[in-house]
């Protein structure tokens, strides 16, 4: 197999022969390779720029390592699945002349030395060879125009335009310096392959310079739809030509592609490279000589050439931490979104694209925080979480913190910590005796009876009643005490322009009624309270809201504790605005109400209980079917626990009265409750009838019994009035049907009022009874 070695051997003499090319050389026309941060203001010296270019252009792949920047040069994109990712037409053109096809690309032209007549053919060979490595076919895909519009919004909102050119309302490109061109994208990708790339860019480009924007699959598809634009006609599936594949494989080795692109079928790139080591390199020749016909062809600008020459001339140097940090921030273009001393930060042209849901928070609500003193501000663990685990604390900010990959920026937290220092501030841990005082003071300060921090800050997922600023719960996890202390005393000094006011102007507490107006103690109280995390309790002024469950066009079932249905309560909301409660412990329809369904408490330990969202009519919660020995016999009542007698004296009450709950089934959301009363099986289903402005619940009881039997049904208790088969209790009118099953209806005294008992004579087998519960408005 041909190797990279042969490329070198074959051309090395030529290289030497051409070495006499003038030192001052014209620059190759076209867009030079783009390293976006270098096009904006930055604090890097010319030599450091050279070092960064050597890294980003992957010079080390042939020439060996130069200066240790503290991070790795980006590996070249993976070519394994290029077949399904990239259109064949694009691939050929790109290989033939990368810079012309994708302006600003860091990939050099390696075919430039060939006679023009051969280039396209060799490029086609290479393209077919690369195609032969993949299995899945390239697909154009159908772009959904609705997704295009969503994609446009996302593209301009989540941070893509920090490094890429935005487009205006008319879709015209707004060319900004420091932009990586996307002009090639629509020719290069299919919808799916671009969406896949955007969803997980590091699979193809492990170097992380194109970061993972934490897009969901759907969002990735939307942005891909936008970038691809209108659907194109599908090109016929391309089958690689075996002859070209064989030639392409040879060419891949011959032209040194394997130096940057690792392919399993190629020799490893650790093979000795023929290119000169840095110490032997002549900075006016080879890649830096635009007329060289023997080396990869970069379209370097004059500034870039000069910078690399300066670096080579000076030789590798040992960089201090601050330089390494600056180089890292430049390599990953962190400063497109973050300010840091010496860098321009978000440029005026890009600034309007940083947006927010909380405009009241000012620029700090829409522009990512400064990185000045970031190492002194954040705890290491938090830096790791933000950089590598996609942790975010500003949900209102539309621009997302990208993920560059731990493999690429794993060094950054420690580097920040070593570089940025503040004089330490000791916030002493409270003694056991002080804890409660400080905690209470901290809680007071946070709430609306103190400094009212919660009017602008969320707290433990609860929304602030005012601005929805950063959740205060994150404070202790994120911040170093020295930074926190300074920030508390002077928010504007640590975060210029922040809307947060000073609560201790000139070190004097504005809140004089807490901790004797002692500034140190107040700040300490807040820090201690934050250190308690969730256990710090919710400050006064936060809204605790019950959650209303809403019934739309489908019935809803909700199980939970409730006064109206007992501990084993079930609320049923039916479309049409009729709701009822069922006590599953005893088998009683225990309440009804019209209008909204239920509100559920979701706070604290004792959550999950429900209350009817409107005034309800309560019905008895004892077992509702029973075999009375005679019409005089008392109805068996459920045990009642009191403060004095909290233990259930009759824990088997329902079971010993024959009741057993079997469950329920849903049809279109409407439940049918199933239960036993001894050997009687009951299916209990209610639906809505409307009659004028009265809302009527029609309850159907289906009985199934192996033998004919008599059973009593207790329908109502309370101060109701009876009129024939209709019985009225408040706004409820219960109407019993004319049914042969009803043997007897009895109204008799019960406690201080009455109870309505219905004696049913049920035949063996199946029978049913319909009862109407009408609710007046």
């Amino acid at each position, binding site marked *: 197999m041909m190797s990279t070695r042969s490329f070198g051997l074959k051309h090395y003499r030529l290289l030497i022969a051409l070495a006499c090319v003038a030192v001052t050389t014209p620059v190759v026309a076209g867009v030079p390779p783009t390293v976006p941060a270098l096009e904006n203001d930055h604090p890097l010296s010319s030599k450091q720029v050279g070092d960064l270019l050597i890294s980003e252009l992957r010079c080390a792949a042939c020439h060996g390592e130069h200066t240790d920047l503290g991070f790795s040069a980006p590996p070249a994109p993976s070519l394994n699945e290029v077949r399904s990712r990239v259109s064949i037409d694009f691939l050929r053109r790109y290989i033939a002349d990368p810079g012309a096809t994708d302006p600003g690309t860091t990939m050099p032209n390696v075919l430039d030395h060939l006679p023009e007549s051969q280039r396209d053919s060799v490029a086609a060979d290479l393209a077919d060879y690369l195609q032969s490595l993949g299995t899945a076919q390239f697909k154009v895909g159908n772009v959904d125009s609705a997704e295009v519009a969503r994609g446009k919004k996302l593209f301009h909102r989540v941070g893509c335009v920090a490094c890429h050119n935005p487009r205006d309302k008319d879709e015209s490109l707004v060319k900004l310096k420091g932009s990586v061109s996307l002009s090639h994208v629509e020719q290069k990708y299919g919808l799916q392959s671009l969406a896949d790339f955007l969803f997980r860019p590091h699979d193809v480009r492990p170097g992380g310079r194109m970061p993972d924007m934490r897009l969901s699959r759907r969002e990735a598809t939307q942005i891909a739809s936008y970038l691809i634009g209108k659907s194109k006609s599908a090109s016929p599936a391309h089958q690689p030509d075996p002859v070209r594949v064989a030639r392409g494989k040879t060419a891949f080795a011959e032209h040194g592609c394997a130096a940057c692109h690792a392919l399993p079928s190629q020799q490893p790139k650790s093979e000795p490279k023929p290119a000169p080591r840095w110490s032997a390199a002549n900075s006016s020749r080879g890649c830096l000589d635009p007329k060289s016909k023997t080396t990869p062809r970069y379209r370097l600008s004059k500034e870039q050439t000069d910078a690399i020459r300066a670096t080579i001339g000076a030789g590798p140097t040992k960089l201090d931490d601050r330089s390494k940090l600056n180089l890292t921030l430049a390599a990953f273009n962190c400063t497109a979104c973050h300010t840091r001393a010496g860098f321009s930060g978000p440029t005026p042209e890009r600034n309007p694209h940083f947006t927010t849901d909380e405009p009241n928070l000012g620029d700090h609500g829409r522009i990512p925080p400064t990185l000045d003193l970031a190492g002194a501000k954040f705890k290491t663990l938090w830096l790791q979480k933000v950089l590598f685990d996609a942790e975010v604390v500003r949900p209102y900010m539309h621009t997302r913190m990208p993920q560059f990959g731990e493999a690429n920026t794993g060094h950054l937290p420690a580097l920040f910590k070593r570089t940025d220092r503040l004089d330490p501030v000791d916030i002493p841990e409270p003694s056991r005796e002080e804890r409660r005082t400080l905690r209470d003071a901290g809680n007071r300060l946070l709430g609306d009876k103190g400094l009212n921090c919660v009017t602008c800050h969320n707290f433990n997922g609860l929304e602030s009643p005012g601005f929805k600023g950063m959740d205060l719960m994150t404070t202790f996890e994120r911040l170093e005490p020295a930074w926190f202390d300074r920030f508390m005393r002077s928010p504007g000094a640590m975060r210029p322009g922040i809307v947060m006011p000073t609560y201790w102007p000139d070190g004097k507490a504005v809140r004089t009624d807490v901790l004797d107006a002692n500034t140190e103690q107040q700040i300490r109280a807040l820090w201690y309270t934050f250190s308690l995390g969730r256990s710090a309790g919710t400050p006064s002024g936060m809204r605790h809201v019950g959650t209303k469950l809403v019934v739309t066009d489908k019935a809803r079932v909700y199980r939970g504790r409730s006064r109206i249905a007992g*501990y084993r309560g079930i609320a049923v909301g039916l479309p049409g605005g009729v709701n009822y409660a069922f006590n599953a412990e005893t088998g009683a329809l225990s309440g009804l109400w019209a209008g909204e369904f239920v509100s559920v408490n979701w706070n604290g330990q004792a959550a*999950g209980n429900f209350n009817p969202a409107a005034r309800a009519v309560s019905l008895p919660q004892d077992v509702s079917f029973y075999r009375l020995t005679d019409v005089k016999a008392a109805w068996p009542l459920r045990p009642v626990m009191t403060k004095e007698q909290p233990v259930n004296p009759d824990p088997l009450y329902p079971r010993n009265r024959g009741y057993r709950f079997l469950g329920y089934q849903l049809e279109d959301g409407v439940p049918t409750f199933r239960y036993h009363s001894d050997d009687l099986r009951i299916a209990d289903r209610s639906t809505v009838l409307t009659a004028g402005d009265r809302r009527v619940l029609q309850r159907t009881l289906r009985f199934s019994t192996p033998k004919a039997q008599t059973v009593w049904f207790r329908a109502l208790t309370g101060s109701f009035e009876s009129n024939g088969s209709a019985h009225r209790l408040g706004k409820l009118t219960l109407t019993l049907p004319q049914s042969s099953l009803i043997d007897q209806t009895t109204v008799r005294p019960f406690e201080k009022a009455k109870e309505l008992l219905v004696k049913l004579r049920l035949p063996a087998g199946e029978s049913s009874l319909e009862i109407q519960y009408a609710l007046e408005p």
Partner: protein
Amino acid sequence: MPLNRESAFALLIVLSLASSLLGEDVGERWGTAEREREYYRIVSVPMPKDAVIEAGAFEVLPDRRLAIGTRRGDVYYVSGIDQEKPNPVYHRFATGLDEIFGLAYRDGALYVTQSCELSRIQDTDGDDQADRFDTVSDAWGYANYHEYAFGSKFDKQGNLYVALGLSASYHSRALFRGWALQITPEGKTIPIASGLRSPGGIGHNEHGAVFYIESQGPWNSSCSLKAVSPGSFMGHPASLNWYKYAPNMGSAPLQPESGTRIVTEKLRVKQLVPYAVVFPYIRMGRSITGFTVDRTGGRFGPFENQIFLGDYTQSIVMRATTEQVNGVWQGACYPFREGFSTGILNVQFTPEGNLITGGTNRGWPVRGIKPYALERIDWTGKMPFEIKRITIEPKGFKIMFTKPVARSRAKAEHFKVTTFTHIYHGGYGGPEVDRTTPKTVSLRFADDGLTAWIDLDQITVGHVHEFDLGELRSRDDEPLLHRHAYYTVNALPRADR
């Protein structure tokens, strides 16, 4: 210091008030999170914006979806939980249930343990929405919000187990509060153990025996894993009033005496089962929760066949191992990973062998700063240097490591062991007492450096043996990722074992 009944009761009241207040420091951190991430990454699993998923229970379905039961009573089926960059699809299978702390799948149905009952729920019309809810068991009382119910997975015979917390966490006012129940495949409910306090999960240990999680409080000075077998009394006497409803259990145990030691009291109260694995309070969690066993075949790293469990308060995940000695269960617990975002209520291995954690920080003090979260632990493939497992020997312990120890540098005195026990009493929590510091009198290594045997000059039955191996180094000169482990000795093996 034995307390008389009245003063014990007064103490209970005071402590119960104190513990109901928020505002506690949840304890020291291990301080190992920065190093842990090299070996085990915590991957945040995105959730739908409009859903509140306070996971209380997990199960893996035959179609490899992850079922999540929530405190808010929803059941979600989640596809794509194992994607390297998770972007899962959530499907709400059921809703409107009451606080789910148990999910088990069998024969096309999901068995859901809710506060009110154990239900079998299924989709009968093929639209992937639960439409049939059968009550499998509701044979327990439920009359206080704090009466949570925790459900297990199925055992080999098809039984499920339900652990029932006390009323208001101190009393047993409704039937079988503070009991564990067995529900047979035929749907019969059999009470099998009393004396539970505030369980946090029930399931099977790595050997298939039924265990439950107990929380620190009265009669439990630390959280613990306890073995449940028919007839057991787990130590908290509030629930002894229901024996007449459980004739299969025989007569009620003697009332335990407050202020004693469990090792002596179990000689008197014959049904009393000692804590199998004590989790020293604060150092190893403050309210440990649902557990599972690593059956991933090594895909999760070196801890196959070990118990993994979370802690609610401290937002951490720990390991535990158990063994049976002379018919009594005992074992050890080990730190594993800290730095989770919320209070962990349950854990579950995914089809790909990652560990899902979930929970909420609602209601009790929690270190994690998110109201609820789903986080996945992925092994990075890099081998941590850890204490893998500790088992007991007649005169000492066998200690296994995940990587070879630098034997030449290891000395007997590097195996530091101290011991303590707790007062067995009705007060809330309690100090570590009766401390001893045994001497490591001999040290022997296996040739591969992965196993060490130590003999101590004394082993104290009834004590937690706390290991600090911080001076050991691996052959690559690494210190242990976690230097501590805690072995609870309930019995000593005979020398001829």
